[in-house]
Structure formats: structure tokens, C-alpha cells
């Protein structure tokens, strides 16, 4: 936690701040989603309230907050009310374990720009985000309605199926970096491309040392699986409006439904962040190491604290830019591709992505064993 009261306080505030980061990103994402979808479909989208329709979010929030809070007669009340609250937890907990920037060093204190450092980062994130299936099941069963239950079963079956492909697709990445720790992974991806194979050192000045160049198949599989994990189109069988009204949150309205929304966007942010950490160098700038940035910052500012703040800010900005790009891809895909049929979904998960992920794992192991590749 920390060595004195100040450090402990800052670390506790950090935990809250990480959660607020997700919650605050949601209205902006909703706006981008609605405007973006409108542009993709040659419409205008919300453009009446405030500049560019930005205040529409405020109006929506007020609407959500002032709606009547009701539960259906046949609902199982404890589960019905608990489910939306639990929906916020998995994504927020997992996101807190992701390093967002280089640690801040001020006056003898070292503050990590992440909720908490976990040595087994990936295992923890996979474990916690796997719990999201329960919130869906609780909501679906607790609503006491057929559509909700059907939607919940669809959603949780999908989440479990794709969790396998998701977990297996990053085994190759873990083997390559030889660590579970996200910070160590990002450190391994710094600078220009450089690796050892067959006893030679191979370098490239034009490509950054990012995971996507070593594990392209894993990147594709992971990205597809994270779409399924966050229940978004083309994998949003959980909602399938034409078939089961709105899936597991059919009976929810007002702020309770907004909490499911925040959970879904939380998973989107989590998937994008993991994608960045595993395959796109984390907070690192492409081709430039943290030390190079730090020495540049030391030349521009006076004092070690100022340089540290500048370095941290630059890397945080780098992470944010990457995150925004990936979130846009999430939205872009949602409004471009149609929905899968359920048998296609299961076929893709079990008979296409799982064997490919297994194959990638075996191939990576063989390559590492025979060519002694080191990054």
C-alpha cells in the first residue's frame, strides 16, 4: 500500500481515479458511438443540444437519473438490483491492473500510474473479467422473464466459449516475453525492432519493437475474442433485438440499464488496453525508449521532478491516443458488420479460433525452442 500516510492516501485515491476514468469515458464514448454511427450510415446523429450535440450526453444522464425505478412483479428482487452493481466490478478491477504510464517519481516517492501492480497481471485480469458472466446470469434470471433468461444464457455461453480462445491466443505472447507482468512486457517492447535468433542480433530501424510483428495471428484472434467478450456487434447475440427484445437487460430501465452500459464500455476499454499492452507497445512511443524520452525531458525542464512529470505525461498521452484509436475501431466495426447467426458464432469460437490459437501456441513454442528467439 505504501510506507507512510501520504503514500497510502495517494494510492487509495488512485484506485477511485481509475474507476472514475472508466465511468467518465462512457458518456464521451456514447457520443462518439452515436455520431460515428450516424456518419457511417450517412445520417446526422444527435446535433441539436449544444455544440456538435455534445450536451446530449448531459440530457441523457438527467433522463436516466430521473426515470422511475421499478422492478417487474415476477423479478427476484435481490438479484435484480444486485446485478447492475456487480456489472461495474469486473472491468473496473481488471482495468486497475493495467499500467497506463511510467511511474511518477517525486521527492523520493514512486507512484505507479496504475491501480495496483500485480506480478501475474494477465492471470489476474483474465480471472476477474471472467466473473462478468455472473452479472449477466444474475440479471437474466433475476428479471423473471423469458427473454431475459434466453439472452443471459446466450450471452454467458458466448462469453465462456470465447474466453478459451482469448486465453489461449495470448499464451504465445506470454511465452515470447517470458513473463506475466504487464510492465515487463511493455519494457520488452521499447525502442526499434531488435531480437536475437539463431545466435544473431536482428535489428530494424523502421519498425518499432511491438508484439504485433512477432505474434500477428495472436493479435487478430485476441482482438476478435475481445469483441465477443464485450458482447458487441458482430457478437451481440446477447441483445439480438429482433429475436429476444434486448436480451438480459430487457426488464431494466433508467440508471440500472446505464450501469450495464458502463460495464460493456468498461470491457471495451479493457480489451483495447490489453491489445495495446500485448501487441502495440503499451504506453511506449513507437521506436523510442522511455530512457530516451526521459533524457529529452531532463533537457527541457529543470529539476528531476519536472522531468519525471513530463515523461509520465508524454507516455500517458501516448497510451490515451492508442486507446482512442482502438475504441474507434470497436465502434467502427460495430456499425459496419452485421450480426452472426448463433451457430456461426459457436462454430467460429470452437472450431476456428480455438484450433488456430492452439496452433499458434505450438508454433511459438517450436520456434522459440529451435531458433532460440529472444526479445
Amino acid at each position: 500500500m505504501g510506507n507512510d500516510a501520504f503514500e497510502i492516501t495517494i494510492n487509495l485515491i488512485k484506485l477511485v481515479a481509475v474507476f472514475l476514468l472508466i465511468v467518465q469515458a462512457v458518456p464521451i464514448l456514447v457520443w462518439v458511438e452515436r455520431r460515428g454511427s450516424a456518419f457511417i450510415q450517412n445520417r446526422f446523429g444527435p446535433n441539436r443540444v449544444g455544440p456538435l450535440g455534445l450536451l446530449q450526453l448531459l440530457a441523457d444522464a438527467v433522463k436516466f437519473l430521473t426515470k422511475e425505478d421499478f422492478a417487474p412483479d415476477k423479478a427476484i428482487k435481490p438479484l435484480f438490483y444486485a446485478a447492475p452493481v456487480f456489472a461495474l466490478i469486473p472491468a473496473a478491477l481488471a482495468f486497475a491492473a493495467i499500467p497506463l504510464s511510467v511511474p511518477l517519481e517525486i521527492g523520493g516517492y514512486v507512484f505507479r500510474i496504475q491501480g495496483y501492480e500485480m506480478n501475474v497481471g494477465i492471470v489476474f485480469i483474465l480471472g476477474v473479467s471472467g466473473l462478468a458472466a455472473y452479472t449477466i446470469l444474475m440479471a437474466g434470471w433475476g428479471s423473471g422473464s423469458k427473454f431475459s433468461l434466453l439472452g443471459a444464457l446466450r450471452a454467458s455461453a458466448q462469453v465462456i466459449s470465447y474466453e478459451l480462445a482469448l486465453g489461449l491466443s495470448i499464451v504465445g505472447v506470454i511465452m515470447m516475453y517470458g513473463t506475466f507482468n504487464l510492465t515487463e512486457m511493455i519494457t520488452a517492447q521499447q525502442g526499434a525492432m531488435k531480437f536475437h535468433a539463431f545466435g544473431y542480433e536482428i535489428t530494424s530501424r523502421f519498425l518499432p519493437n511491438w508484439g504485433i510483428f512477432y505474434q500477428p495471428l495472436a493479435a487478430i484472434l485476441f482482438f476478435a475474442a475481445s469483441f465477443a467478450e464485450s458482447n458487441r456487434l458482430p457478437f451481440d447475440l446477447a441483445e439480438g433485438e429482433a429475436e429476444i427484445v434486448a436480451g438480459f437487460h430487457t426488464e431494466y430501465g433508467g440508471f440500472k440499464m446505464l450501469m450495464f452500459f458502463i460495464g460493456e464500455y468498461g470491457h471495451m476499454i479493457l480489451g483495447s488496453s490489453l491489445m495495446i499492452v500485448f501487441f502495440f507497445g503499451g504506453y511506449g512511443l513507437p521506436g523510442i525508449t522511455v530512457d530516451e524520452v526521459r533524457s529529452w525531458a531532463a533537457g527541457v525542464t529543470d529539476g528531476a521532478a519536472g522531468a519525471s512529470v513530463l515523461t509520465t505525461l508524454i507516455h500517458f498521452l501516448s497510451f490515451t491516443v492508442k486507446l482512442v484509436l482502438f475504441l474507434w475501431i470497436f465502434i467502427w466495426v460495430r456499425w459496419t458488420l452485421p450480426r452472426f447467426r448463433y451457430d456461426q458464432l459457436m462454430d467460429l469460437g470452437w472450431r476456428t479460433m480455438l484450433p488456430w490459437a492452439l496452433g499458434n501456441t505450438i508454433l511459438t513454442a517450436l520456434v522459440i525452442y529451435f531458433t532460440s528467439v529472444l526479445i
Partner: protein
Amino acid sequence: MITDVLMFWFLALVVLGSGLAVILFTNPVYSALSLVMAMVGVAAVFVTLGAYFIAGVQLIVYAGAVMVLFVMVLMLFDLKRETHSFAAGKISGALKLISVGLFAGLVVGGIVMSQGYFVKENEKSLGAASATQSVNTVAGSQTNLNVVNTDNTKVLGTVLFSKHVFGFEALGVLLTVIAVGTVALARSKGGTHAKH
């Protein structure tokens, strides 16, 4: 130190409380959800012990995969009759009382034994020695924790794939046999498309 103690008692309460709830709820869905809670609590206890990898695996395998299937299947059943027969009746009531008694005995026994009331004098000094030793190692690992997070994943992997490799592989074969056997049993009577 005080936070460690508070954490332990809180987690112990959560795990034991949800464990008790598993057998006391009449609705199987609630029981299954309580079991999930207990498993998450056990994972948190692993974290406080510094076994991060085991905690993560506990979450992924038990809480994330096994119990989701349990809960899913339970939610599909029409459980009115089962709930009724489970909630009423003298035999099931007696069974519940017995299990609560056994459970309470276990808890009390665990607490009493950890205080060392039923230990003979010579064992007591032995236990005290090992206790101080373990406290020392814990303190050592605590100071380690602040420098670098202790990594026991590599140690675990090395042990699993060298010393216990036969047991590990045998368990894998056993699980495969179970999976194949379940499918074979389910299909032997025609499976889901059987004509009654």
C-alpha cells in the same frame, strides 16, 4: 500488520458465511451463487498469502468456468418441486442441522487448534519454534514484496513439469477420460434427439 489481521478476519467471515449459505439456502441457484462467492473469497485469501498465480487460476478455473456452467444449468431447470422437497421435511432438516453442527465444530476446532490448546507441552515448544521461523520468513518475504513482487509462478511451473510431471500428465489424462466418458454416457441413450 493490523490491516493484514483485519483482511484475514474479513475474508474468513466472507468465505465461511458464503460456505454456510451454500447449504442453508433452499434455492439451488442461490446456493451455487454463494459457492461462487466462497471461491472468490478463497482466491482473495490466496492473494493475502502472496500466492498470486494460484489466486488467478482459482478465479479463472473455478469461479470463471466451472461455476458458470453450474449456475447456467441450474437456471434452466424448473426447480419448484426440488426447492419444496429440499425446504420441507424432517430428514432434510435434520441433515441441515447436522451439517451446520459439523461445520461449526470445524470452525471452532480450527480456531482452538491454531491457539494451541490441545497440543502437548513438547510439541508446543516445537510449534512455537516453527511459528517464529515462519513469522521470520513471512517478514522476509514482506520486505521482499516492497522491492520486487515475489514470483513463485516460475518455481511452481518448474516443479510441476519436472518433479511432478507424471502426476500432472496423469491428471490431464483423467480429465480427458471424464470428458469423453460424459459424452459417451449422454449419447448412449440417443442424446438430446432420443425418441421416448
